[in-house]
């Protein structure tokens, strides 16, 4: 690494991977519960396994974004991090708070956790993805505030590039929209309306700025294309993300009690949301075509390009499939939603996390990249995870289609009930579980590639001093 303080990224990346493993363990539990309904009941009821699975996802991605930031900010600003002590301290605070929260979910009934953590003083629990006790939410706000402060102080004293400015804008946006998680009114409709100011404005808003900035950084480093060209693309991509995504929030307002004009506004603007993802694919491929160097880290380039393709498929294509109100009327809250969600999150965010880790981990350990054997294992793992996730997505789409056919399309007289419809989908859920196991194998291969890298350290190129 060029700057000693980039080392702060290491524990963040390591912990992110640990949480990722936890997320997948619970994913397999959930996949099993879809088939064997009482699996692990009552010790781990479905809702507990689910909140562990989803919260681990969100938190491991946050750790990965923070690690990415600690790695790329010193390099982009050309100055050391303002405070490495703060960076390490916040790591421990966040990690401990995270572990305690997950243990809370697993060890006590949820209502009891609410009582123990004083939820009644400011009730924010019990909403999807926002299951954290209020004190955890406050902790997250403080950790993120401290993190952004550290980064801002660094950027202030250093070089301001488009990459680092877009990244920090995305991170500040992440913090601002997190504040809406504290708003929990008596009105269910108001609750739902502003819940999406956290969720949509994160993953279909400011997180796209974070994604774009990290992608741009990796492409500058691995292709050597002129920064001016990369930064122009980045601006265009994030422009389209905000122009489509802000009013695109309306595609969540079709059926929750909001006015009818959202059916139109949400449909039209969210139909444009695939565009920034399509631009990212063109961006990556175009930079590769114009490359001025053959960077030896093929794995990182694979993750980066793969990310844009999988994100376009998951967020763009699968998102588009159910974004228009007349379609969504029948598919709302079915397995099609789950299909889209899984491929979108994996393609856009899990893969960019693995791309930046792939690029920076060797450099943080004194190597330009990993040995050919380690990279081969890593690239294989990328394919196995990606194809498994595509399989999960196609299967859940099939499951959603069966639901729509049996449960939603017919009228009151002909519609089949929820539980009976689920029974009819059982064979698809079996196949989905198999795909989930394959994904877990892929993750195992990915982690194994780190061991191979360590064992074949002597076969990896030294850090290129002038770069």
């Amino acid at each position, binding site marked *: 690494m060029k700057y000693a303080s980039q080392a702060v990224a290491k524990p963040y990346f390591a912990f992110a991977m640990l949480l990722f493993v936890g997320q997948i363990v619970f994913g397999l539990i959930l996949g099993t519960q879809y088939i064997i309904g009482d699996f692990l009941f009552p010790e781990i*009821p479905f809702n507990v396994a689910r909140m562990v699975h989803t919260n681990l996802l969100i938190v491991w991605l946050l750790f990965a974004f923070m690690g990415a930031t600690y790695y790329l900010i010193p390099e982009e600003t050309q100055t050391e991090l303002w405070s490495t002590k703060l960076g390490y301290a916040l790591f421990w605070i966040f990690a401990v708070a995270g572990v305690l929260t997950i243990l809370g979910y697993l060890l006590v009934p949820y209502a009891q956790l609410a009582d123990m953590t004083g939820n009644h003083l400011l009730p924010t629990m019990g909403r*999807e993805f926002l299951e954290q006790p209020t004190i955890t939410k406050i902790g997250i706000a403080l950790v993120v505030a401290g993190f952004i402060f550290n980064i801002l102080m660094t950027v202030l004293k250093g070089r301001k590039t488009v990459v680092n400015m877009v990244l920090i804008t995305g991170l500040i946006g992440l913090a601002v929209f997190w504040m809406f998680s504290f708003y929990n009114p008596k009105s269910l409709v108001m609750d739902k309306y502003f819940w999406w100011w956290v969720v949509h404005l994160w993953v279909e808003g400011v997180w796209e700025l974070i994604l774009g900035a990290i992608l741009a950084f990796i492409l500058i480093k691995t292709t050597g294309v002129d920064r001016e060209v990369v930064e122009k693309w980045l*601006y265009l991509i994030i422009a389209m993300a905000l122009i489509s995504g802000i009013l695109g929030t309306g595609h969540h307002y079709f059926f929750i009690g909001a006015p009818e004009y959202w059916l139109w506004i949400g449909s039209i603007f969210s139909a444009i949301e695939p565009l920034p993802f399509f631009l990212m694919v063109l961006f990556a491929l175009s930079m590769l075509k114009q490359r001025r160097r053959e960077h030896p880290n093929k794995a990182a380039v694979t993750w980066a390009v793969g990310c844009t393709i999988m994100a376009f498929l998951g967020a763009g294509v699968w998102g588009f499939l159910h974004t228009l109100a007349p379609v969504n009327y029948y598919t709302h809250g079915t397995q099609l939603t789950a299909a889209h969600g899984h491929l979108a999150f994996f393609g856009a965010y899990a893969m960019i996390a693995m791309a930046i880790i792939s690029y920076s981990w060797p450099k943080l350990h004194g190597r330009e990249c990993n040995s050919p054997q380690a990279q081969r294992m890593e690239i294989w793992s990328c394919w196995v995870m990606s194809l498994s996730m595509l399989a999960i997505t196609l299967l859940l789409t099939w499951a959603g289609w069966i639901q729509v056919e049996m449960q939603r399309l017919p009228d009151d007289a002909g519609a089949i009930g929820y539980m009976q419809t689920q029974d009819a989908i059982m064979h698809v859920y079996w196949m989905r579980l198999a795909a989930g196991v394959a994904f877990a194998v892929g993750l195992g291969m990915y982690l194994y590639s780190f061991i191979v890298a360590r064992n074949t350290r002597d076969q990896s190129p030294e850090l290129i001093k002038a770069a």
Partner: protein
Amino acid sequence: MSERFTKGMARNIYYGGGMFFMLLFIGLTVDTVTAIPERENRDQLTAEVAHGKELWEKNNCVGCHSLMGEGAYFAPELGNVFQRRGMDNEAAFKAYFGAWMKAMPTGVEGRRQMPQFNLSEDELNAMAEFLIWSSRIDTNDWPPNKEG
């Protein structure tokens, strides 16, 4: 990409577009917030209904069920359970709801299980009120049928 489309232009589209649409979104939000009270029958949002929402959250019902299509997809949609199981009759629905909640878990082998939440009579009543109130929200005619 030609030289005529400069980085400065792209930056301006980002700033201008972002700001314009954020302001428009805030404007639409003000309008929506003004329209919601009538659409959700806020005058019928009693202390009981509010308590029911608190219980819904405290017991994480959304962790298995969906409400207006949002939540988890492991158990039935409950936004219209009042129509589906109560046939729009409040007394009938409360009787059904109380009996159901007290009977959980079913213990049927292999079937998806719902925990026993040990709710008091008051709490059961509040939850039922919450679900009844929720079923009357104007959701633009969603769901398509009684199965939800």
